[in-house]
């Protein structure tokens, strides 16, 4: 349960390069028929540069920084995020989490969340609170 992190320090980044196959499978498992995610012509018709990454897939990518960086001994309790910029297939989406606060007993951690594209522009910004499970 010990986290060797001090406020200001990050967890390891998680990098996702979404593919058409990934977006199709995410659409399928969530039964999301919105064509911007799997129909390139329709996405272009709506002014997008490619197949659009689902907002919840952005969030899942950001949350993987916590679940993979902290492990199962910690539970995500609260998350707040905003989609700042859409992303498309082929973008390189780097999710980052930085510890900003640790409770006195060390059992509650607060992180900033951020996901940036290959140009360093933010796609998602937010925060999360995690607690020790035991």
């Amino acid at each position: 349960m010990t986290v060797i992190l001090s406020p200001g320090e990050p967890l390891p980044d998680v990098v996702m390069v979404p593919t058409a196959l990934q977006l199709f499978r995410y659409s399928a498992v969530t039964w999301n028929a919105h064509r911007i995610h799997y129909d390139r012509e329709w996405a272009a018709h709506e002014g997008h540069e490619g197949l659009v990454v689902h907002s919840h897939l952005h969030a899942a990518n950001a949350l993987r920084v916590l679940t993979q960086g902290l492990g199962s001994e910690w539970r995500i309790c609260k998350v707040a995020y905003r989609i700042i910029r859409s992303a498309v297939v082929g973008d390189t989406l780097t999710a980052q989490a930085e510890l900003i606060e640790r409770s006195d007993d060390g059992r509650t951690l607060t992180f900033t969340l951020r996901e940036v594209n290959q140009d360093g522009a933010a796609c998602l910004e937010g925060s999360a609170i995690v607690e020790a499970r035991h």
Partner: protein
Amino acid sequence: MEDTTNATDSLARFYDDMRSRVGQRHRRHLGVVSRVMILRYAIAIGETNPIHFDEGAAKAAGFAGLVAPPNLLAGIAEWNGGLAESELTPDGTVRMDGTADLRVMGAGEDMELLQSVIAGADIYDDELIESVDLKQGRSGPIVFVTTLHEFSGADGSVLNRNRRTILARV
């Protein structure tokens, strides 16, 4: 999207319709979170933690069964069969009549994850449209709709309490 006059009318219709629904609460039975749903969701998002793939690993980690990734409940767009293709709008979404030419996207979410979601959980959703706001964006008007979803189990205990915001624009 070329006919912006019609689309602007659609946005006004969408705004008025959603405003009329503010404060209305709907309870829906969504169904059971299955093992396969968890496996597929975890694979689709690139998860590797065995608590999402291996019931034994999940139990060894102290969970009652296979664990859903944190935003699975939030991410499922349709829990049941959904509408026939002929009833969907041309962009593939479910929308009120007369607003098919709008562009709609997720804008963000606030989630309280009160309990882990375990395979076999039977889920109910209490939905409440909390606010509808019209704002001026860089490329024109945008309508923001914020909806509270309280996902609870069959015993009534709340698993997730999520506030989701979507945006609609011309």
